[in-house]
């Protein structure tokens, strides 16, 4: 999934800290922003459609709660953003500490670890 917009992220931050909340509750917690009730309602509805919020009906109002936690959201955004680059081995686009995707042989790793240990001992 793509990263959320600024307002969406602020709404999610409120709901990750405290839930479930109604539209009115979220509005009350965003008092400083002076956002219209309908703006918050639309944002919550959009987040629900994106699958990051779940909702239950209580009387005439919806109560919203996160469908995924903050770290899961972060993981999904990172996977969507960087996943294709990893699959295509597009590391040269970024200046990486380690690059070039491929398998590294376990015995080779063990051999290199011995090489480093020998080097340390000789010093």
């Amino acid at each position, binding site marked *: 999934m*793509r*990263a*959320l917009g600024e307002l969406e*992220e602020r709404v999610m931050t409120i709901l990750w800290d405290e839930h479930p909340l109604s539209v009115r509750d979220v509005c009350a917690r965003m008092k400083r922003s002076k956002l219209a009730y309908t703006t918050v309602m639309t944002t919550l509805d959009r987040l629900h459609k994106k699958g990051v919020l779940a909702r239950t009906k209580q009387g005439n109002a919806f109560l919203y709660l996160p469908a995924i936690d903050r*770290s899961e*959201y*972060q*993981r999904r*955004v*990172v*996977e*969507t*953003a*960087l996943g*294709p*680059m*990893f*699959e295509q*081995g*597009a*590391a*040269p*686009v*970024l*200046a*990486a*500490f*380690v*690059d*070039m*995707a*491929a*398998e*590294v*042989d*376990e015995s*080779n*790793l063990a051999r*290199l*670890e011995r*090489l*480093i240990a020998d*080097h*340390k001992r000789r*010093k």
Partner: protein
Amino acid sequence: MTLGGVVGFVVLSVLLLTALSLMATASIALAGARLRRAGPAAERSAAAWALLAPATLTLAVIAALAIRGSGTIDHCIGHDHHAHLCFAHGGAWLARPLAIALAAASALTLVLRLAGVAWRRIQTGAAIADVRRVAECADRVRIVQSQRVFCFVAGHRKPEVFVSSRAWEALSADEREAVIAHERAHAAQGDLWLGALIDVASVFAAPLAGAWLRVRWSDAGERLCDARAAQHTAPETVADALVRLCRAGHVQHVPSGFTPRSEALEHRVRAVLASGPIGSELHPIAWCLAAVAIIATAVFATHLHHAFETLLG
């Protein structure tokens, strides 16, 4: 300006670019062992020049010929036995289907490849913007929640180091320092800007030669940053960090990631432990050679002009 003249100049550009690029690539291949001994800085700048010089020199030759051909004296009157490299009298090129096909195919390939480079850059920029939004700041780096093992530096105006949470957890405090030093070395030596320039230059290089030189430039750049990180920490710490990151990715059977292939990893570990010379960049020599080549092109423009016309028939 006639269409035929444009076709003539495009054909000449393609032939010159290909020939110069192959010559530059062959020079790097032949000097491979000597460059490796000279150190990663020399190796890296040689690869960069082998990518940049053919396009620059071709541009200089074409500019010199175009200026020569646009003078007040009509040079075409004296020799009408072959197609002229001239924007005013180059109509004969239109009678050569092979030249038209070569010019059209080359122009199309070039545009598509440049569009590909631009598209990848745009996609990467958008991806990094998304990652930056969700990354958490910690100890001079941005920690990215991911089970993959990676670390990289990104951001042209304000470079930032990004490390996956899995990689960060796998490293000791000293190894983290080594990783940060490596990434900062990339930013300090302008790899983010230079990488973009190299990508564009690769498009103009001969087929396969561009990709080969790009890998050489990138590999030498990694070893150069390893050496610079070793100066900040210790060669063993950098080597440890490399192996540890590869192991962290390997144990989890991550299908791919920013982990080096076996031989590249071994090469880098051995290079950093050997603590050989970093070497000096070839910039002053390369600038002098480029300047001499461009001045010679301008001085001998007339002879070059006739030589190319005769060569192209």
